[in-house]
């Protein structure tokens, strides 16, 4: 598929007939699961603990692989053509995914190279991102000295160094202060305005309401609801996402997948 074909794709992510179970564990996580996320959408994936959000995110990013069904990122099948598919997306995991012994500049240089960028481009993007995410002053300090908020911003910067067209975000603002959350959410909106598809999962429902225009609610590996957020709120006569969440997934505890 050439550059033109990639640009004309309607869906950023297509999950078709997905089946998955963890090896050695009883029960199936997903069975004939389908989901489509349109290009340039701000998509939120929600559900109680153990609903399968992180598993689905890991399947979409190729961290886990399934024998049943297909997952395509901008038309490239993650299983068969993973090197091409990986060029299109960025991933911001929940855990800090960088080298704490390195500075933000060094981390961005390394992950930039691994994302397929070259010297000049890496330096340009590094300067831009450090500026946008307010890390310029600490660009040469080892990340292990950083606060949680600074680490979150660096975690995000690495995920977008190569200007991905689809960005997967797993709890990108967990454990940060209001200012950092505000900065991150604004930056994500800015990215989306420039055409980046956001696939977001979080337990921060107020933040999700602000960020997402379309959501999917999951429970026990199945989609409970999937539509425009405003439409779902109106349909279920709820004022906020939290009420909608409890209405659709119940008030019992969710159990993390062990």
């Amino acid at each position, binding site marked *: 598929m050439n550059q033109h074909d990639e640009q004309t794709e309607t869906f950023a992510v297509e999950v078709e007939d997905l089946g998955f179970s963890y090896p050695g564990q009883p029960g199936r996580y997903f069975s004939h699961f389908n989901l489509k996320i349109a290009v340039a959408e701000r998509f939120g994936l929600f559900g109680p603990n153990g609903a399968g959000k992180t598993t689905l995110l890991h399947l979409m990013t190729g961290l886990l692989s399934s024998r049943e069904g297909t997952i395509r990122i901008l038309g490239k099948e993650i299983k068969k053509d993973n090197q091409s598919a990986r060029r299109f997306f960025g991933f911001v995991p929940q855990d800090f995914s960088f080298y704490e012994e390195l500075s933000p500049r060094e981390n961005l240089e390394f992950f930039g190279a691994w*994302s397929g960028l070259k010297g000049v481009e890496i330096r340009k993007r590094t300067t831009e991102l450090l500026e946008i995410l307010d890390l310029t002053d600490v660009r040469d300090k080892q990340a292990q000295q950083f606060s949680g908020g600074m680490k979150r911003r660096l975690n995000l910067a690495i*995920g977008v160094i190569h200007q991905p067209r689809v960005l997967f975000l797993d709890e990108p603002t967990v454990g940060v202060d209001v200012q950092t959350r505000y900065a991150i959410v604004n930056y994500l909106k800015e990215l989306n305005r420039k055409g980046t598809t956001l696939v977001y999962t979080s337990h921060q429902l107020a933040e999700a309401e602000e960020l997402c225009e379309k959501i999917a609610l999951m429970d026990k590996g199945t989609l409970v609801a999937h539509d425009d957020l405003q439409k779902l709120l109106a349909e279920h006569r709820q004022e906020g996402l939290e009420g909608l969440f409890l209405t659709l997934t119940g008030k019992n505890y969710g159990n993390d997948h062990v």
Partner: protein
Amino acid sequence: MYKLWATILKDVRILLRDKPGLLFMFGMPILLVLVITTIQNSTFDLVSKNKVPLLLCNRDTGAASRQLIQAIDKIDMFRLINLPKDETGKDITGRMHSKDALLAMIIPPDFSTKIDAKARKIAGKALNTFGLEGEKGAAGEDSVEPIDLYYHPILQQSFRSSVQGALYSALQLVESRQILRTLYFSINEKQLPDSLEKDLLHNNLSINEIPVLLDNSRPLPNASQHNIPAWTVFAMFFIVLSLSGSIVREKLNGSFIRLKTLPTHYILVLLSKQVTYLGVTLIQAAIIFAIGVWIFPYMGLPALNLPSDISGLFFVSLLCGWCAVSYAICIGVFARTQEQANAFGAVSIVILAAIGGLMVPSFAMPGSFRTLIKISPLHWCLEAYYGLFLEGGKLKDVLMNIIPLVIIAVTLQLATLWGLRQKKLI
């Protein structure tokens, strides 16, 4: 290539910031080589330059015991410390426990009388055998009461054996002299002339030690030539702790998740670690060799003589380093936790070093171990280094040691690839 360069840069930066790790990789081996060479050199000096203190309690008043003491003194191996003749065994062991000496000897009160009696009896027997009139029915015993030699338990068997050998030769000299004198007196009824006694007893044949070297221009091997190559190999393989630990750490921390989602093969991580740590092993070897050549002489230790084939030395070091790195990466890929990697890595290297002949020479090992030696990469590294350092050989002379080393390294690399596939890392 750019990705590999960026990954190497990342590994080097992390390595340089790990101060305890650097100390472990460079400081510890230097200390190890220094301590072991000093100890081995002082052991060598103990029997060559420094004399071993020997507490001596002579309870005998005769001539034979004085001759024995003179003979022991002449060996030039012991520094004799004379004790009063009424010193008890308990007193002597007490002195030894307070480390006055590690050896003590008690000559029994009737030593000279019994040596004399034994000499007369043997001389009589000899004269009768020659058909001459000997001293008939010479009273005397064939055996002399043994001399008690006390030793401190810290002395190793090999050292005790060499001490015993030296003392036996002194005793033999005293006994032989007495027999000769008695025999001569019985035949000639006059004293054995000193010049003849000297000719008979002291005209020892000397032993000329010739090291089997491939390069005749080389000086004699010394403690540095033996220890530096051996402990350099050990140091190279001991990077297993740092390297396998770093692989496991990287597998377990968040960066690994991100790396797996990027359009680059994970194998590049391992390739970069191979290049980086191969550099570390070469720097280790260069530093240790440089210390041996330039610093050791200032510390009173023998200088290391580098082989004449420097390119051969570089190539052997490169292969040893590659094998060490392959071993460490293999452990890092299979280990699930850092504790597993560290414990298995450290213990296995000590075992491989022991069976590889780093601690006990391989020729001194029992038969079954001689087969086991061949599986130790450290053995082949050591043999290749010894070929260059001790035998004065060139690269072609150590090819037979290099080939097994390459086979082991390739096997480890294949095992690593298999492990990566099993764990779905590639």
